[in-house]
């Protein structure tokens, strides 16, 4: 069953048409005892992947594939890691990207699929001049 109406699917499909390279959505979850939000996350990602052939969903077992969880720094589930052309974009989502965050997910997929941050030249210059060590940004949001 589709989460979006046929009209909304058309609108999202149009937005996603900007994508030029493959985007992989790695969903970290577990088979036994996964939170209900992990199932919602899977549904949301599947819906997105059904709208563009360049988008692919890959489920990673958080319990059995500890090396991959460590590789991407994942310590909570459900977690989503976006890869652009199989390369880590360092963009993550923790929790089901439902409600308002669905829009953020679409935006992140477009950023990954175009590999362009779309930041102002001033911002790019500030980042290039000032970021020389790892920076971990967490943004707390709510679905509504």
């Amino acid at each position, binding site marked *: 069953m589709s989460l979006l109406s046929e009209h909304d699917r058309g609108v999202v499909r149009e937005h996603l048409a900007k994508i030029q390279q493959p985007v992989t959505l790695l969903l970290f979850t577990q088979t036994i005892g996964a*939170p209900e*939000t992990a199932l919602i996350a899977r549904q949301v990602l599947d819906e997105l992947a059904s709208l563009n052939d360049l988008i692919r969903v890959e489920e990673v077992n958080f319990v059995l594939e500890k090396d991959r969880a460590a590789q991407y*720094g994942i310590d*909570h589930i459900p977690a989503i890691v976006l890869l652009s052309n199989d390369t880590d*974009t*360092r*963009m*993550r*989502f*923790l*929790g*089901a*990207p439902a409600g308002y*965050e669905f829009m*953020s997910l679409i*935006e*992140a997929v477009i*950023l*990954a699929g175009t*590999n*362009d*941050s*779309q*930041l*102002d030249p*001033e*911002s*790019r210059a*500030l*980042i*290039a001049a*000032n*970021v*020389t*060590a*790892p*920076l*971990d*940004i*967490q*943004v*707390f*949001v*709510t*679905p509504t």
Partner: protein
Amino acid sequence: MSLAHRMALESAHIRATCVEATEFMDLTRKFRVTGVPKTIVNESIEILGALPEELFVRGVLGLPEPETDSPPGE
């Protein structure tokens, strides 16, 4: 959310995670999240609310706010 993600795409040193606050009470408690959006950088810098791009980028990088131009005529 998108600004933090954009910054991650811009620099290989930056990782940006959008956290659904209601689902991870351990994290919201740890970082004392009482309102959203709340941004935490390297578990130390806190940014409250949604900011325009320049202020957000400067805030994340721990840079001072830009000086405003002197009003004309001075």
